[in-house]
């Protein structure tokens, strides 16, 4: 019996039924180690930027940081933040991800019954499509505009940014294991992956309005 099938059997779900990942989650601290040694890994300060991308970053005015202007950060940067509280809403044909920090996270819609559109307008959040492989939701996102940054120090990305996320419940569903991989041949020398563990909460998402820095 494979790990995936064992997990399905243990959960009591019918075979082929994806797990219910709906709920409110918050990332664990980087100092925390969960059972089995599960820990957050990968921090955006060590992105494998190309030399040209490093130079570009040095020329960025940090006052223009979207974070400081209450603008969206984009999925890559947002999901790595230590204070990102998310709400997952599985619905027919899609999974909607909402953020308590609404201005910075906004919302993401992961479409599970279609592939990428042939003609994509570039957007802040990109176009996300997903499918299940056993207990793991695989999300593929392309179609980004260039208004977001990769990290807090101004690393830029191009419209070629391609994100792959692998999301699965672990430790009896008390946590989500979240792996994010970014590829952008115009900026990154090689693909970059980080891992975060999100704890499932029993609290509600509260209203959190961004106050831009004066």
């Amino acid at each position, binding site marked *: 019996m494979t790990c995936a099938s064992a997990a399905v059997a243990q959960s009591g779900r019918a075979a082929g039924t994806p797990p219910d990942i709906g709920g409110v989650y918050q990332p664990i601290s980087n100092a925390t180690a969960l059972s089995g040694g599960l820990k957050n890994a990968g921090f955006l300060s060590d992105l494998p930027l190309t030399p040209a991308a490093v130079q570009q970053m040095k020329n960025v005015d940090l006052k223009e940081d979207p974070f400081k*202007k209450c603008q969206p950060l984009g999925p890559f940067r947002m999901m790595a933040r230590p204070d990102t509280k998310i709400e997952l*809403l599985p619905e027919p044909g899609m999974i909607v991800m909402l953020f308590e920090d609404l201005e910075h996270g906004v*919302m993401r819609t992961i479409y599970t019954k279609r592939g990428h559109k042939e003609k994509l307008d570039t957007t802040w959040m990109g176009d996300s499509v997903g499918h299940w492989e056993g207990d793991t939701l695989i999300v593929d996102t392309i179609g980004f505009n260039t208004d977001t940054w990769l990290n807090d120090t101004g690393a830029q990305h191009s419209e070629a940014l391609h994100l792959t996320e692998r999301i699965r419940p672990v430790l009896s569903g008390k946590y989500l294991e979240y792996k994010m991989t970014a590829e952008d041949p115009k900026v990154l020398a090689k693909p970059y992956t980080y891992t975060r563990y999100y704890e499932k909460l029993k609290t509600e998402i509260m209203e959190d309005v961004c106050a831009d820095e004066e």
Partner: protein
Amino acid sequence: MRTTRAGMTTIKIAVIAILAGWVLAGIGIADSKDNQQTAPPDWTGFYTLARARDLAGTNLKPVAPDYDLDKLIVAHLQPWARAKMQVTDGTADDTGAVCKADGIFRFPPFAGRFLWLSAPGKIVMVFGEINTAGVKRIYLNRDHRKNLLPTWNGDSVGHWEGDTLVVDTIGFNSKSWLMSGMEPHTEETRLSERIRRLTAGNSTFLEVVAVVEDRLALTSAYTFTRYYKKVDAEMPENICNEDLSLWKGWRNGALKRQFDRAKEVK
């Protein structure tokens, strides 16, 4: 004619069968009600404000549509609220114009579109103008929280009455306007809504009958109705991204104008 013993037995069996049928039928009706209570309607989808062309051929008629809602609200304002409205700068004091939160009273009834999402114990409405109108979560499994902190969108709780969702929202801050005419409200505002799904013509609509009360800002409650048409499409991304540095310039100028104007308003 006398009934034989066999005939009496047959009658007894028939009576028992009839009584049993009534009992089982009663259980069936109760099950049906229980099923309705535990399985509320699923209205998941993308909805946009129905315009005249969407409602043509139906008997659905919005109450106080478009700018009629401004007139309706102004007619209910207390004198102090009307005075405040007159000194408010409609450009520089509009938080929505610079992509900040501006509450749920303006966008939804005037140009609203939203995703209606169902989840255990709640319904989540994600507005298309997410920067300004944000998200409205209607909790079905609790009452209003005690010691509510005032927020832009308030605290919404709901319950089903048959096929109608009844929503009660309190806990608003006083920073938003009741409509684009800059009509103010206070933290005493209460929004009561009755929402049901209808089919008219070849389309599905959500009907929202809203009652707004505010014992401090309004002389009496006002009521309006809106229809939202279900659309077979994906809600597009709509990120507001105005240059926020303009805000500071507008704000400083507007503050001076408000101060000068306040001297003139009686």
